[in-house]
């Protein structure tokens, strides 16, 4: 565990009590409603607010008791603020250089050209912040933080005002940073899509309290947590690559002994991967159907069911080998099919994605 923290913020109306241990690499998503304390927590970690607490990163103590407090500029972190907050007196290039210049050449793990190119900043370099668009500002701000080659990256909704296409360009870059540099990232986002795609761990805040923290997969399917009840509720399954180059642009995986086909990815055979499946993409059948466009049909056991987000729906938990998968179906279908716990069913999976 890399980042150990415990903070007690008391602002009268609002109190944050957070005690967390975050892993030394990978992305931890910070999730919670507006006003639940996500930004406050990031600010405490960055040392921008000083409240009673304890904080250590990779063995270095950053804050402890009233005495020990490493000032922000000595913490090797990158912070993407919720509002872009560019330096208004500096051009985009100078904004980007600001942190870059302050990192000794030998410690630069993220390269200038790479960031510029991936974030599409080239045409903006000579502009001033008030001469670029909102999304462009956000990209510059992201680039600026990355160029300090941080050892810990704090991101407060870095992609909120970006269009889908830009996101699709930037997310793989963040994934690469996460994987290649083993850079721990704390990521605030309201988009479950983004979180599921990037995050390994998840911290759920509610009104300043940590409601849950842990493995993404476990939390997404936990009955008592709200994730199962959202439009985008999903499952993440562990799988093994069987044939990366199957026909029709597909890759074949093995999930608990059964084949699962996904869009082709350049992954070596034998690799363990994680697959994300949204509950809404999973249909159920009593017997494996024929002449139907669903690519995957997995044999599962019905675990239990609970009301879904609307009265017409049910959320069903299925057991696939040792793993749990969610399916959202209509109450009417469940009745028609006479579903019972323990029953063997066939899960028809429309889409699955590597995560």
């Amino acid at each position, binding site marked *: 565990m890399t980042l150990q923290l415990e903070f007690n913020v008391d602002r009268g109306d609002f109190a944050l009590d957070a005690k967390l241990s975050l892993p030394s690499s990978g992305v931890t998503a910070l999730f919670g409603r507006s006003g639940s304390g996500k930004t406050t927590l990031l600010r405490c970690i960055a040392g921008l607010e000083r409240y009673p607490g304890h904080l250590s990163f990779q063995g270095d103590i950053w804050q402890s008791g009233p005495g020990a407090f490493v000032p*922000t500029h000595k913490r090797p972190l990158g912070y993407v*603020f919720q509002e872009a907050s560019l330096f208004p*007196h500096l051009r985009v290039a100078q904004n980007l250089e*600001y942190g870059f210049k302050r*990192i000794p050449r030998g410690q630069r793990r993220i390269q200038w050209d790479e960031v510029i190119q991936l974030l599409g900043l080239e045409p903006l370099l000579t502009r001033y912040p008030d001469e670029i668009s909102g999304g462009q500002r956000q990209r510059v701000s992201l680039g600026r*933080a990355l160029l300090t080659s941080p050892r810990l990256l704090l991101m407060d909704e870095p992609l909120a005002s970006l269009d889908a296409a830009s996101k699709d360009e930037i997310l793989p870059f963040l994934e690469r940073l996460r994987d290649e540099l083993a850079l721990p990232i704390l990521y605030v986002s309201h988009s479950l899509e983004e979180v599921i795609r990037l995050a390994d761990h998840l911290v759920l805040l509610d009104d300043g309290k940590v409601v849950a923290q842990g493995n993404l997969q476990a939390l997404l399917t936990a009955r008592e947590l709200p994730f199962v009840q959202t439009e985008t509720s999903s499952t993440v399954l562990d799988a093994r690559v069987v044939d990366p180059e199957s026909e029709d642009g597909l890759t074949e995986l093995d999930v608990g002994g059964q084949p699962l086909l996904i869009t082709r990815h350049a992954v070596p055979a034998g690799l363990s991967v994680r697959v994300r499946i949204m509950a809404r993409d999973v249909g159920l059948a009593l017997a494996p159907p024929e002449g139907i466009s669903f690519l995957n049909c997995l044999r599962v056991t019905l675990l239990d069911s609970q009301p879904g987000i609307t009265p017409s729906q049910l959320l069903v938990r299925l057991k696939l080998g040792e793993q749990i998968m969610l399916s959202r179906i209509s109450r009417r279908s469940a009745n028609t099919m006479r579903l019972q716990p323990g029953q063997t069913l066939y899960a028809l999976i429309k889409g699955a994605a590597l995560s």
Partner: protein
Amino acid sequence: MFGLSDADITALWITVKLASVSTVMLVILATPLAWWLARTRWRGKVMIEALVAMPLVMPPTVIGFYLLVLLGPRGWIGGFLESIGVGHLAFSFTGIVIGSMLFSVPFVVQPLQNAFTSAGGRVLEVAATLRASPMDRFFTVILPLSRRGFLTAGVLSFAHSLGEFGMILMIGGNIPGRTQVASISIYNHVETMNYSAAHSLSLVLVLSSFTLLMAIFALNRRFKVVSVA
């Protein structure tokens, strides 16, 4: 040139030197004070803020008088300097620089404090996360964003040093070539009813400072106007 005597020209030169030296030094010295005033939450800072305005409240000659006592051989400062062999500061260029600086303190501290107050906030935090130390942040973020405050501080202090003479006369002693400044000459011309000389010297003073200031303001325009809000 404009019918100015050699003495007048020397006086002009000393004036410019005085105004430049005292403005530069004052701005350098006042910056930390203004920064501290802009940042501190100490309740007693209002005392300091009020104190800063005091040099304006007193008539220049009276300040001059008290300064003379202070800097002269029997004053604390002058006496001390005398005892270590440096010599007291009355009637010296250093003396009038000190006087001029003291006198311009409010013009410099107040605009700088304002500028620093509004330049703070979020961008400072951003700079901190980009590894800039407090000093570094001050020079790379606060200073550039406070450009207009510095401009005002400099202009007010410079201009005021040009025009001030009551106090300078008192502690400077009007020694030609050392502490005789142009404003005294103009004053004398008026006093002695030598109005045409007064007019031309005024004109030179006004025209040259006008040109200088215009150049400064024009230069300032070439910077980006950063409206923080």
